[in-house]
């Protein structure tokens, strides 16, 4: 969030603009992630994780970023994540979205 705070430089409207930009991607992608099936091909999961991990990093959600990066690597390396892992990611993303919405 540091970069967003720096760029918005105390302008609350500018900060809201950035937060909405991230929410516009995070919310639908979380919906897509929740509907993924861990027992099927996990490439769609990897693709969503790849897309979102840079964004959660920019927002400053370190725990979510570390988990998502590690899950992406697992799938890329030919492994698979389990339902509990996917649920944990969705939970962290939901908290992050709630946190961003609270700041609007």
């Amino acid at each position, binding site marked *: 969030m540091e970069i967003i705070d720096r*760029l918005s430089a105390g302008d609350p409207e500018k900060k809201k603009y*950035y937060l909405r930009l991230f929410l516009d991607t995070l919310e639908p992608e979380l919906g897509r992630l929740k509907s993924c099936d861990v027992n099927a091909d996990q490439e769609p999961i990897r693709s969503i994780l790849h897309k979102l991990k*840079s964004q959660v990093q920019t927002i400053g959600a370190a725990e979510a970023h570390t988990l998502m990066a590690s899950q992406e690597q697992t799938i890329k390396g030919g492994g698979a994540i389990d339902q509990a892992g996917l649920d944990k990611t969705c939970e962290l993303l939901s908290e992050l979205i709630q946190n961003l919405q609270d700041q609007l």
Partner: protein
Amino acid sequence: MSKHLKIALVDDDIPNTEVLRDFLIRNGYNHVDKFHDGESFLESLDRFDERAVVLDFDLSGGGDLNGLEVLEAIKERSPQTHVIFFSGQDSLEVAVESLKNGADDYIVKSNAAFALVKTSLDKVYDLQVLRTNEKRNQRISWALALGWMITLVGVALYVAN
């Protein structure tokens, strides 16, 4: 200080591209365009004559081309354009491949990534300034040499007469 370097950001990550663009503008780069897929960027390449491109590897959210394919097309059509790879892939293979194909730098998206992109663009900008100065100095040298030649011919004609 305003830095005159035409920059294109090519990344399917819409919010991060917007934040990076604002960050670069805040740091003096006043001409930054955004493209969310390789195809639309390549269409504009000839028209806009970008001098530096910050290019993501995985553009699957935008179009069919990946960053390496876009890099190849840039180098074919505009070899003088500088390309900085900016990727979420911490992959040695992609890094080596991009540098082998003419990328100037490979930056992995991380906490410090925006600052690293700026540092890399600063180098491109400095190089561009250096080249412009070299060309200007060359023109001045030629003008001086020509001036001397005209003077010498004038003197020679004067002495001959």
